């Protein structure tokens, strides 16, 4: 008896599988998508091939001076030669081990947060990072105690100064911002009013005017004889400015917590501060992690503005070197180097905030 023998399955047509299918679906699905792909592909190749050629292939990375450079390629020798200045500014070379030690302590408290270590160790290292580290950094970098020679803030600079401004700014702006946000949600009209005026004022004016104010008007506000360090003035300006933004971010989180949580906390008989600390803030801050990360990133970028009031942060240090006659035509290299440094930090922070958000995700919103 003859049985029906089905033919073996044919493979799908070549255009419906493998990379050809991917190309069809993602690059050439319609006629205008094909045109776009070709135009953009041409633009990318014509821009990036010469750029990569300039930045890497023809570039000179090490050497003694501007003479070592190739006119057709990037002159990274400039960065290599001036790296010390870009990192430490005018900080005396023989004391550079002090900021280096601070960098190491910073790495010690931050890097383990990414490693699979027991939570207790990570917690204590984090607590060290926000309490012991700033103190240690102050005594090490500023000196003047424990037999360390004092280094005035006017000699601080470069990446070191950028990181100090950003770190202290974040450490100060977050708690002040939380307090302001709680104040704005307070039931006492006077406290609420003060917080609203404070927040809205700082948010309405540009940071640059605040820095100007800090450098021009602060001496007028203070009693005779009291002077403030220029760096401290910039720090106060940046902190006040960013704490107002932080407050608005945190307020968003506070408003997103359902009323039941506030009422349940009250029903447990907790006082105001314990209610906030144990029940409301942990939930509210978790919701606004992306907002906090954005504020931190913008604070980091805003530290560059201090060069306008005469401090040499990373950008200021590079910019001041560009006018050196020994190095002509390294403008693009200098700015690209700074851009790369800032980009790495900011992009890293935004990735980390995504990760943190996923880690703390409990599966239910609110």
């Amino acid at each position, binding site marked *: 008896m003859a049985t029906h023998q089905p033919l073996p399955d044919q493979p799908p047509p070549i255009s419906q599988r493998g990379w050809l299918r991917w190309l069809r679906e*993602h*690059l050439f*699905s319609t006629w205008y*998508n094909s045109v*776009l*792909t070709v135009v*953009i*592909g041409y633009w*990318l190749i014509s821009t990036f091939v010469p750029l990569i050629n300039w930045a890497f292939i023809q570039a000179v990375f090490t050497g003694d001076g501007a003479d070592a450079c190739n006119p057709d390629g990037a002159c990274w020798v400039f960065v290599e030669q001036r790296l010390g200045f870009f990192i430490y500014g005018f900080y005396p070379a023989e004391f550079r081990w002090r900021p280096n030690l601070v960098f190491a302590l910073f790495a010690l408290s931050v890097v383990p947060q990414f490693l699979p270590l027991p939570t207790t160790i990570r917690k204590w290292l984090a607590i060290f990072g926000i309490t012991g580290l700033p103190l240690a950094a102050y005594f090490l970098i500023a000196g003047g105690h424990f037999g360390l020679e004092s280094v005035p803030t006017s000699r601080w600079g470069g990446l070191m100064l950028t990181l100090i401004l950003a770190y202290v700014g974040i450490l100060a702006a977050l708690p002040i911002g939380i307090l302001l946000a709680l104040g704005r949600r307070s*039931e*006492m*009209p*006077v*406290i609420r009013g*003060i917080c609203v005026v404070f927040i*809205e*004022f700082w*948010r*309405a*004016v*540009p*940071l*640059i*005017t605040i820095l*100007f*104010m800090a450098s*021009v*008007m602060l*001496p*007028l*506000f*203070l*009693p*005779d004889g009291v002077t403030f360090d220029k760096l401290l003035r910039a720090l106060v300006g940046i902190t006040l400015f960013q704490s107002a933004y932080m407050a608005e971010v945190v307020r968003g989180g506070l408003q997103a917590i359902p009323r039941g949580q506030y009422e349940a906390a009250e029903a447990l008989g907790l006082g105001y501060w314990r209610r906030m600390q144990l029940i409301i803030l942990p939930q509210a801050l978790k919701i606004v992690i992306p907002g906090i990360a954005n504020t931190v*990133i913008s604070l980091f*970028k*805003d530290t*560059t*503005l201090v*060069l*306008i009031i005469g401090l040499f942060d990373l*950008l200021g240090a590079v*910019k001041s070197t*560009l006018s050196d006659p020994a190095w002509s035509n390294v*403008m*693009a290299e200098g*700015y690209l180097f*700074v*851009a790369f440094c*800032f*980009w790495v930090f*900011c*992009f890293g922070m*935004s990735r980390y905030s995504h990760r943190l958000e996923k880690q703390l995700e409990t599966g239910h919103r609110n």
Partner: protein
Amino acid sequence: MTTDPRPLRPGRPKPWNDPRVRSVVFQILAIAGVAWVGYTLFHNTVSNMESRGISTGFGFLNETAGFGIIMSLIPYNETMSYGQTFLVGLMNTLLVSGLGILLATIVGFVVGIARLSSNWLVAKVALAYIEVFRNIPLLLQIFFWYFAVLGALPGPRQAVNVGDIAFMSNRGIVLPKPVFEPGAWVMGTGLVIALATIVVLAIWARRRQAATGRIFPVLPIAVVLIPGLPLLGYLLTGGPVSWDVPSLGGFNFRGGITAIPELGALLLALTLYTASFIAEIVRSGIVSVDKGQTEAALALGLPARRVLRLVVIPQALRVIIPPLTSQYLNLTKNSSLAVAIGYPDLVNVFMGTTLNQTGQAVEIVAMTMAVYLTISLAISVLMNLYNRAVALKER
């Protein structure tokens, strides 16, 4: 059975435990604290200014400024007053902010939509653009465009020549300037008539569509009419507009309109930086519209283009507009970075040069901050009105 001798209603708590008493005390303390800080600052400032011999009051606004400004939208020269420098700076700030907002919106919307493109390459290029530009400080971008790109352009003698009418050099971009001769009013009238016609037509078309469901193509008519009528006027009156074409004279260009490189660099940086944020806002706004809305609209038989215009975009705008306004505000505030490259904006001209010359820090800082406060508050008020208008109306 024993009865509890204590009363059922508890007595008043001790004053230091009574929340009402506490709240009053805290508020009085807060007012006292603020008043004390305010008084101390005021007292210190007055005594400091006396000891330094700084004059007070706004009389300086009528004094002669005595310095030149490289770019001004209103008539200005050195013999005019500080009040005029304030206005020049304000106009320049508004100019760069206005242009920046316009351009950043266009670029931001294009990139935000490109980010959602079905074309893999387009989406990735848009993503790369966003991630690069928003993670680099704006000040650095301004320096880059000003010093490394525009500063690297050739001098006026070797300027990049675009068809002998426009030139790009390190002194800026020079464009031909239209000179209106008698009779040009016919063109202006043509433009006004065209715009009025289109507005009336659009209202009529919308009413007719609501009543009958038939669609009237307003857009193509507008595209023809708005440039068409002024052109007709131009031809009928025999060309009453001539062009002041720039020409190289000595070491710089004469005639035409010059856009100074400071303006170009600031505008480029502000546009590209803010657009990267706007793109993300636009993308998240479009993504926030429920997929069911698109599917329902397609099921009704609407073509894809109309689905976007009539269903998705109006709902996305509700999510997009609030953060978009705050980006506009940021751009306006960021335009004050002009001071770093010498574009004569409000902060540069007034808080910089004028402050240095007069020394009247308190008045000048207060005036500058008042300008930004006014802009901010005005935009917030408009924003709240808009929010009320588009908020979901639950019936």
